[in-house]
């Protein structure tokens, strides 16, 4: 009797979870459709004259780099070539142990420079500030290793402009990425942060650091991630934006108002999910201060990044992401306790907690439960089959609706073959890939729960192929350390 009750309860819990999850995603999908149609009706972004761009606020592009010798030079070169009226590039070398610094020095004729700027966020010691003699808008901060957040904080300290854009050292942007991302700041003065859609660079042809031709990757693991990214960005994030309840702006590309981030205390250095944690803290900070604010997501594909093509790298990445998510939610749990409501408190936070944080536990339990039920006979084969069909049906509907959103909006992937391949992946991902990512997410959750690696910021490592990069340049010796003064106590 008690076994039967336990089975009944388990069935209903799993069923309720899956219904909640998919209904939630379908609603986000609907919200994303409305947002995209609104964008489609507003083609002004494409048609604004150059004069408008010339009056856009200047932006400091911050590039934290740790052992990025393979990509850093071409990334910086591309960032210097962005089509934007006024921007500076600040590379922060976070104590790299490879040739990152030497390659930067050689490629951009860097010289040590007596930069005097105000240190408003505490960071690991700065070794030297370098300025390029060939590119006046390029500076490089060389500092002791302190993690990505620490490097970003050092970049914020050195940034001269009211907006800063954080970019990963392996990110590939469009020439007009900054212009598109800054537009919400022009349109609405209460905008404090803007994120954009990140796509996968695997399979694309990249020339001089910019995407020349979009293509699909060859390896199945990367192909599966293409569909996953479409789903995640096109409605997982765009869907929250109209409610001003966006919970994360990807670390690969995000534009922020510097003064608000400084007021909120900059990036936290004790988390691996610094991008998500900052966005949640900005919500809290602005709500606590009674400030009118907007955190915006634009659907434009403005950033391309390399996805892991090996299981080991992908697993490490997903475990890290899950840890970052849990750390961010834990650090900002007061968001649901503090006064003041709004969708971020009542919808986004609980949704993220239930379906993305503890979701893997229920999902994995569901898979194991139905499989075991079928094998050991405490569930009928029909029930197991029904669960699989529902799970497959909802999963495919969500993935294909993401493909449709992509088709009606940006139409990035050319040719009928691309559509067919992506549809194939939307089917295939349900047989193993989704379950595997659920396992990795669970591992991330368990590791956080038992404190493994908690409170330690670190750089995510990935085996990069970076096939678009130029031949590695020979290493050159670094220049002597410069003396940097700061007025932290002033």
């Amino acid at each position, binding site marked *: 009797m008690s076994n039967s009750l336990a089975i009944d309860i388990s069935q209903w819990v799993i069923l309720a979870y899956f219904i909640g999850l998919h209904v939630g995603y379908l609603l986000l999908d609907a919200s994303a459709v409305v947002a995209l149609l609104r964008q*489609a009706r507003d*083609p002004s972004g494409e048609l604004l004259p150059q*004069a408008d761009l010339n009056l856009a606020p200047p932006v400091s592009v911050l590039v934290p780099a740790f052992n990025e010798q393979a990509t850093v030079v071409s990334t910086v070169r591309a960032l210097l070539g962005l089509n934007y009226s006024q921007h500076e590039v600040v590379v922060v070398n976070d104590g790299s142990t490879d040739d990152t610094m030497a390659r930067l020095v050689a490629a951009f004729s860097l010289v040590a420079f007596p930069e005097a700027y105000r240190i408003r966020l505490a960071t690991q010691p700065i070794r030297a500030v370098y300025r390029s003699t060939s590119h006046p808008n390029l500076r490089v901060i060389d500092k002791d290793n302190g993690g990505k957040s620490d490097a970003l904080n050092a970049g914020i300290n050195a940034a001269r402009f009211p907006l800063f854009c954080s970019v990963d050292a392996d990110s590939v942007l469009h020439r007009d990425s900054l212009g598109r991302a800054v537009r919400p700041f022009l349109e*609405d003065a209460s905008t404090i942060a803007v994120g954009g859609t990140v796509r996968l660079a695997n399979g694309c042809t990249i020339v001089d650091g910019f995407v020349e031709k979009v293509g699909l990757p060859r390896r199945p693991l990367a192909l599966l991630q293409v569909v996953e990214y479409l789903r995640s960005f096109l409605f997982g994030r765009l869907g929250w934006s109209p409610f001003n309840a966006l919970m994360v702006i990807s670390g690969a590309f995000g534009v922020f108002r510097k003064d608000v981030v400084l007021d909120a205390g900059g990036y936290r250095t004790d988390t691996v999910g610094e991008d998500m944690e900052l966005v949640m803290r900005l919500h809290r900070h602005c709500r606590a201060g009674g400030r009118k604010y907007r955190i915006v997501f634009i659907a434009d594909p403005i950033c391309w990044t390399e996805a892991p093509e090996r299981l080991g790298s992908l697993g490490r990445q997903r475990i890290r992401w899950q840890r970052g998510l849990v750390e961010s939610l834990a650090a900002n749990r007061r968001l649901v306790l503090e006064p003041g409501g709004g969708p971020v408190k009542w919808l986004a936070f609980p949704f993220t907690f239930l379906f993305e944080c503890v979701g893997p536990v229920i999902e994995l339990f569901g898979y194991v439960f139905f499989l075991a039920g079928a094998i050991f006979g405490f569930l009928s084969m029909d029930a197991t089959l*029904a669960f699989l069909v529902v799970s497959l049906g909802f999963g495919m509907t969500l993935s*294909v609706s993401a493909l449709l959103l992509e088709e009606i909006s940006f139409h990035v992937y050319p040719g009928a073959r691309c559509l067919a391949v992506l549809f194939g992946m939307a089917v295939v991902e349900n047989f193993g890939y989704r379950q595997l990512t659920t396992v990795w997410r669970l591992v991330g959750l368990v590791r956080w729960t038992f404190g493994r690696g908690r409170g330690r910021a670190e750089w995510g490592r990935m085996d990069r192929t970076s096939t678009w990069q130029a031949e590695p340049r020979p290493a050159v010796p670094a220049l002597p350390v410069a003396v940097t003064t700061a007025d932290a106590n002033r």
Partner: protein
Amino acid sequence: MADPASTALVAAGAAIRTAMAVGVVSLCVALLLLLVAAAVRCWRARTARRDERARRRWLPVFLAAVHGRGDPPGTMPARERTAAVEVWNHLMSTVSGDGGRRLRQCGQDLGLAGSSRRKLARGRSRARLGAVVALGHLGDRPSWDRLVVLLDDANSGIRIDAARALVRIDGTEAVGLLLPRFLDSERWYRSAAVSVLGEADPARVGPALDAGIAAAPPAGRRQLARILGGLRSPAALAGVRRLMTEAGDDHELLSACLDALAGCGEPADAAVVRPLLDHPAWFVRLKAVTAIGRLGGPEDLGPLNRLLSDREWWVRYRSAQAVSSIAGLGADELERLRLAHPDPFARDAVAQVLAESEGAAA
């Protein structure tokens, strides 16, 4: 009476059947969505091919018109109009003088005014936007009222292009209509307002700006000052001076006016700026230093030298830049000034400007 166990089995069976049905329906929905995506792709490809054909056909015609060659253009099929109007608009915005007049005449001969008016009334967004721009280039007075209505459109692109079209049709009247709207910074962001006003004849904008300033509420004056600052035009100077005298304790207005003066002021304006070098608000001091750097003279070196020790980094940095620019100091003189300064923070600021100028020279 039914057996409870068999009732439970029936209920479970019904639930499983329902779940299976939901699953099958969702699979069908997924397939349907895929078909829609494929259809969208086909439709998009067809539209792209049609537009490309239109562009290939009409670009040579328009270029011939610009150069005063070629036969009369004939008639334009409705299906080619949207793409052809975009090409025509693009050329109109890049060609001026006689070529521009001939191209405008070509547009009129093709009946673009009439078709654009129709698109304005009931076209799709892309065609509507093209029509708004085209009517502006054509200086089409009959569409004035419809364009005015579009100034309050929900679509920011339509609003901006309608404003631009009105300025092209009648600059003076348009500026009078636009200024009160531009004060609403929620709907009209500064750069859009500046770019629209920048297209108007400066001689005509000046009086309209004066009238707009007189009628603007305090919050609107700040926005107006920012717009005037963005214009960087002598036409805005009288308005800026007036706002400056009326700013009082409004720090934001003062800073916006100083920003504008730095862009379009004359050396005589330095007298109004100097007292603000000691303003309690740091951002006003910052803007004042920047303005003095552009408008001031050697007599300002004393106050600027003092501001090298300001508690705000930006004020110190801009002061160092101002010292360097208005005195025309060479590297050696700047270095002497740096070494002579008692404040290490001032020395840092000068060192940075010095290194920057050396870097620029290199």
